[in-house]
């Protein structure tokens, strides 16, 4: 399989390689325990009846005969595909403006566009309720159509997935060779033709990749349809209803499989197109520098301003809703919505979220980075390496909701010796790390690949054990990506809903989940307040990160900033 290939490590074996081999075997065991076996128990659950007897595909048969459930599949596909088309077009234009024009205020627009990353997906849904809901400000704009349903789901999904698409497309569009455009110009090609013959083909894999990533995110998202879906059922909400509402675990497992398969397919197509993308640019390419073009620049400025305004209005409305006394009748400002005691919750869930995010960031970063290092730099059995690499990529293909459900089936089983972690903070941390493993892993691998592959050989020739070199060279050099990974894990742990909705317990309620429950109870303002708390923490963490990068890293990364002086 092509996607399981690695950089060649041709160094001879050393005692540290044996330790690495041993460690990687323990990674395999951990992956089996926390990823493969739970998924296995999910599959076997889907093949059992309520008494735990094997019934083959009977549950699937039942599913196919249930028109309501089938309708959900259609609905899921409909909102996912619609959102994907809209997001890809908007994000493409936006990233085109950022990378290929001389539009002013690029930095500002980039910053604004990333705001949705800081909030849970439900924040968008809550904001939409304030704008277009039954008592919304702009209700009339929908011409009698309700925001509760596909319109709301698509709008909210577009909002929260937009930055994800933007990141991929910006990378893809900035990987362009200016010589191609120069050649086109010399051959007297029109700008429009150059766009369709150079720009679009160059970004084609980026576009494909974006489409599949966004499709999967919307297709498997739980928070948005839960809050704003109304009676419009999708697969994710069906699973929740079957499991939490009707305690029908078997059907929940079947729908999970229906959710898992398209996500897997999308994942493999995405991996494939990313591989292609890389090979497009060689080290000899000349980076594209946009030229001023007043008309295009101004059109793009207008377009980006409009999107930026929408983003600000969305998050602004969520914040406004959180501090208004009684929407829409009493618009006086208040902080009482931040008092969650009334709703019987208190701030515990918020603190739990912070704890979860902290643990996931610390332990996750260590585990993921060390794992990536073992795979990339040590001389270990090829089979072991292949297995770990495959496991490391697998979580991306598994929707959070599916993983969460799989955890219930596996860890809640009475005869499982790991049963003790059920309903504790541990299971939440483990689930979060596994759920967000792949992206972090790939970040680590990319960073490690950039390091000279002979460092380990040099160290061995100087009789320095590899762990010492790891500590003295690898770690310091890789600090920036390591910080990136921990931030990524932290923010995602704060904002995730789907991964943990089945796993929290009375003692470990989480902010994002609480926001959903508050909304369920009609406490929309408190839900908004809770979601905004998550935003505050995310912003604080990001700011800290920026400060650290600027101040602290400057010390350890001094070598980076000292570029050859011209003496």
């Amino acid at each position, binding site marked *: 399989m092509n996607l399981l290939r690695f950089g060649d490590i041709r160094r001879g074996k050393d005692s540290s390689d044996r330790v690495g081999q041993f460690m990687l075997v323990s990674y395999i065991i951990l992956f089996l325990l926390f990823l493969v076996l739970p998924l296995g128990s999910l599959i076997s659950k889907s093949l059992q009846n309520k008494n735990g007897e094997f019934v083959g595909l009977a549950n699937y048969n039942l599913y196919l005969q249930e028109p309501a459930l089938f309708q959900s599949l259609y609905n899921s596909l409909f909102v996912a595909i619609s959102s994907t088309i809209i997001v890809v077009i908007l994000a493409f234009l936006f990233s085109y403006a950022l990378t290929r024009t001389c539009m002013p205020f690029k930095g500002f627009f980039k910053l604004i566009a990333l705001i949705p990353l800081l909030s849970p997906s439900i924040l968008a849904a809550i904001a939409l309720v304030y704008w277009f809901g039954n008592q919304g400000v702009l209700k009339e704009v929908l011409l009698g159509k309700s925001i509760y349903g596909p319109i709301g789901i698509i709008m909210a999904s577009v909002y929260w997935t937009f930055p994800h698409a933007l990141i991929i497309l910006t990378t893809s569009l900035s990987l362009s060779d200016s010589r191609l455009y120069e050649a086109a110009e010399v051959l007297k090609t029109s700008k429009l033709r150059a766009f369709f013959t150079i720009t679009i083909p160059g970004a084609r894999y980026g576009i494909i990749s974006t489409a599949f990533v966004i499709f999967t995110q919307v297709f498997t998202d739980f928070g948005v349809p839960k809050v704003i879906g109304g009676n419009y059922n999708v697969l994710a909400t069906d699973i929740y209803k079957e499991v939490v509402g009707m305690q029908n675990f078997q059907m929940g497992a079947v729908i999970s499989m229906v959710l898992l398969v398209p996500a897997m397919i999308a994942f493999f197509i995405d991996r494939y197109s990313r591989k292609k993308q890389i090979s497009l640019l060689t080290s000899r390419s000349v980076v594209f520098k946009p030229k001023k073009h007043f008309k295009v620049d101004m059109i793009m400025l207008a377009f980006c301003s409009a999107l930026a305004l929408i983003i600000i209005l969305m998050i602004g409305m969520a914040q406004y809703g959180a501090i208004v006394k009684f929407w829409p009748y009493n618009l006086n400002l208040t902080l009482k919505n931040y008092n969650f005691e009334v709703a019987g919750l208190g701030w515990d869930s918020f603190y739990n979220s912070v704890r979860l995010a902290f643990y996931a960031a610390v332990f996750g970063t260590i585990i993921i980075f060390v794992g990536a290092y073992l795979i990339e730099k040590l001389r270990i059995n090829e089979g072991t390496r292949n297995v770990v690499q495959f496991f490391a990529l697998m979580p991306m293909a598994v929707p959070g909701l599916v993983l969460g459900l799989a955890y219930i089936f596996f860890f809640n089983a009475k005869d499982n010796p790991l049963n003790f972690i059920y309903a504790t903070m541990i299971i939440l941390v483990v689930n979060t790390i596994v759920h967000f493993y792949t992206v972090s892993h790939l970040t680590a691998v990319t960073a490690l690949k950039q390091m000279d592959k*002979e*460092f380990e050989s040099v160290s061995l020739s100087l009789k320095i054990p590899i762990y010492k070199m790891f500590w003295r060279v690898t770690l310091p050099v890789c600090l920036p990506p390591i910080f990136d990974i921990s931030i990524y894990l932290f923010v995602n742990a704060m904002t995730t809903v789907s991964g943990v909705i089945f796993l929290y317990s009375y003692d470990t309620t989480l902010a994002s989940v609480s926001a959903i429950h508050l909304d369920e109870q009609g406490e929309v303002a408190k839900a908004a307040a809770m979601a905004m708390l998550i935003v505050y923490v995310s912003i604080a963490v990001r700011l800290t990160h920026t400060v650290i990068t600027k101040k602290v890293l400057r010390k350890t990364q001094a070598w*980076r900033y000292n570029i050859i002086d011209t003496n």
Partner: protein
Amino acid sequence: MEFWLKLNIFDELNFVNFMTKHKNNNMYLEVKNLSKSFGNFEAIKNIDIDIKEGEFVCFLGPSGCGKTTLLRCIAGLETQTAGSVIQKDIDISHKPPSNRDFGIVFQSYALFPNLSVFSNISYGLINNKWKKVDIKRRVDELLDLVNLSEHALKYPSQLSGGEQQRVALARALATSPGLLLLDEPLSALDAKVRVFLRKQIRDLQRKLGVTTIMVTHDQEEAQTMADRIFVMNEGKIIQSGTPSEIYTKANSPFIASFIGSMNFISAKIDSSKKVKCNDIEINCDTGSFGENDSVQLAIRPEEIYFQKENQDDNVILATIKEIEFLGSFQRVYFESKSFTNDLIIVDVPSANARKIKLANHAEMNLYFSKQDARIYSK
């Protein structure tokens, strides 16, 4: 460069220790019947090599010939499929690299980017429980040796390529290894620095007396630096010897063309045991070739003259087709249909060329001696 004079005072005690440590036997390193495969691909096949104490040896060959694999097997960075490596009468074939005695310099330098020049060089000393003062003294010595004293506190990215390579060299030598391995050390540098460093490395090696193996694909580099060259192709050693032996007595057309340039002229041995090229008979030693054998006649471009030097020199009448100016000499392409269908290359020192006044379309007699003409089977 004056700093190479400083070599004289370099660490004499260390040098003496080193010499006494290894003086008893003459073979420092023996490679016996070594093979290495990657899957189905045989990178090196049945390699046998003996290297004497203090010798500077080059593995020379085109890319993909297995020379780097051989070096890495000697270092233990690669595990051989069969055969053994013996260093100072001890079989080290299955020792991990950390238990072998060598220092290594890579083409990419592999300097640790976050450590200063000083820390890079002292990197290997710290683990050997050296005292701080001794480490400082040793690093200062080495910095002096490669003339980088004023750069001690800089980071690698602040140095030029040649300077970085010298740091890598100092780092490899810091622990006084018995064997120095150089993996294409000069390939990443530009031509001028390369020529400069060639001599420096060579002088340094002579002074320290450290047994050295260098891998290179650059025949000029191998010829100027090595005591002995092992020419490799397709995983095998096809000839070994001193640089001049390899150059003058190349045992195959491959080596003859790989090392220096060579005119190859297809020919046949005729009934009088002479070499027949198109219409012309050539006087030369036909060795073991018999009548009607298809052969190639090989003459080096610098061994063709415009004047007769010996009585029995071969003569060919040829026309100048093209002249290339290459600085110190000119490369002249001659045509002589009665001799060969290809163009004949003749290198003429520029000083001579000026006297002779070469011009296109001029017709001239070319001479080459019986001894300088070699024949190889086709």
